[in-house]
């Protein structure tokens, strides 16, 4: 029984990280119809930003402060990925709006370039990030069942990001502009919205969320230049499965992929589990070709 609970917990944990990554992808695909293959590298940016914050703390600040570095590194990873995303949007992505296939190729190239850049700066081997001591250990529910604090922390972090995203999209003027552009770009523009500004803001925020995901990944294992590529395919499947245009679709998609991944791999083997997940997705898309939330958006018609 405990094993099942643990697997369920792992499934939710995997889902939460996927959700954080897929949120950014879903908004850029839904709003600008751009497939951003470099999204995985923004995860890497966030992860290395965390690593750098740690190095700075170790080098320049008293060791008693070290445990607090992680809170700061969440902000640092968001800021780093946000700024790189903004730059990327200004110099490249904005020329690719509405051209999904071109954007796929171009951002793939950007991703490779960013990976190589990281290799040149930090070296090819993976680096480890030391977790703060307050995240060591776990919450013992019963004798055999321990939920690691790190995983619980990530869950909380994702819940917080999701809440922030929800408030931003549905409760602020900027979010209202974003939804208007997503639903009807031309009309939004005719009513005075600067679609350029909304687009770059949306892209940068999506990138920033990927950065936070990278920061969370440093708690789970060592990080390297190609860390993003492990997650990008699954994240795209979340977007396809969930549909675009509403947050809830992405949440359901992430839960679907994360849980089936974990459970199938537990019941069968790692590779057979993956095959089964793909089969499930293919079957689901036969039933609902537009994903879980089929919001008719003009950009996709």
């Amino acid at each position, binding site marked *: 029984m405990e094993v099942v609970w643990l697997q369920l917990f792992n499934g939710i944990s995997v889902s939460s990280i996927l959700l954080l990554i897929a949120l950014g992808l879903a908004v850029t695909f839904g709003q600008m119809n751009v497939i951003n293959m470099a999204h995985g590298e923004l995860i890497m940016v966030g992860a290395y930003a965390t690593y750098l914050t740690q190095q700075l703390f170790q080098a320049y600040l008293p060791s008693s402060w070290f445990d607090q570095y992680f809170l700061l590194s969440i902000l640092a990873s968001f800021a780093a990925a946000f700024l790189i995303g903004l730059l990327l949007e200004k110099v490249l992505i904005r020329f690719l709006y509405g051209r999904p296939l071109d954007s796929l190729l171009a951002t793939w190239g950007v991703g490779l370039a960013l990976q190589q850049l990281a290799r040149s700066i930090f070296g090819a081997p993976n680096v480890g990030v030391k977790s703060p001591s307050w995240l060591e250990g776990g919450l013992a529910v019963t004798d055999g069942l321990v939920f690691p604090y790190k995983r619980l922390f990530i869950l909380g972090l994702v819940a917080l990001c999701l809440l922030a995203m929800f408030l931003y999209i549905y409760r602020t003027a900027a979010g209202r502009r974003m939804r208007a552009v997503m639903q*009807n770009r031309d*009309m939004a523009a*005719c009513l005075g919205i600067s679609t350029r500004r909304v687009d770059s803001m949306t892209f940068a925020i999506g990138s920033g969320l990927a950065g936070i995901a990278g920061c969370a990944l440093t708690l789970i294992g060592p990080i390297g230049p190609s860390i993003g590529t492990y997650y990008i395919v699954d994240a795209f499947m979340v977007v396809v499965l969930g549909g675009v245009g509403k947050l809830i679709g992405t949440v359901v998609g992430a839960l679907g992929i994360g849980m089936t991944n974990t459970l199938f791999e537990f019941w069968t083997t790692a590779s057979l589990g993956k095959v089964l997940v793909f089969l499930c997705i293919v079957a689901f898309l036969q039933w609902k070709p537009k994903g879980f939330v089929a919001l008719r958006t003009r950009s996709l018609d």
Partner: protein
Amino acid sequence: MLTVEQLESGYGESLVLRGVTLEVRPGQVVCLLGRNGTGKSTLVKSIMGVLKAKAGKISYDGSVLTRKPPGERARSGLGYVPQGREIFGQLTVRENILIGLEASRRRSGDEIPPAAIERFPVLPTMYERRGGDLSGGQQQQLAFARVLAAEPELLILDEPCEGIQPSIVDDIRDVIRSIKSDGRTAILLVEQSLEFVRSVGDYVYILEKGSVAWQGEMEQMNDEVVRRYLTV
């Protein structure tokens, strides 16, 4: 105030407008007529910037708009009610009107100005409903409230009475008449009903094959003109 000179525009490779020249003066109601497919909607879309002009010049209040994005045109005082209304279906009625405020030059936060809705008493009763759930006539009223929120100086209306029930058509026409009688807002009106055009219009342009075939004061538009350019 709005001048269009030798405008050429169209969709993709195909050219629809071939050298259109037109002018709207402050407070004037200018009607744009013509049979189906003569370029009326293409012209208003090009004026708003939804379609890019291939040649020619569009200027408004002395500044050249030809290469400006639609958002900037809206913020300089142009308001647009498109054919088919184009309400944001997933946004609430309130949010739809607040989006209209984006073009306003004196922002008042998240409050809907009373001037926007005074002519549509039914709208405040459905603020929290989604725009997509409204009937066609209600959506048309919402489209008007949305564009009036920014207090535009020039209102561009593309067939505002198309596809809605007759009683609401009368309401919409009353709204257009009252905007005209306020005298603060000029109107560029695309409309099929000659009788309505005669009752509100000051000046008429008739398009044929993408260029202006006839223009003149409303009184000059006699039966001969109508038979030649408008009857099918």
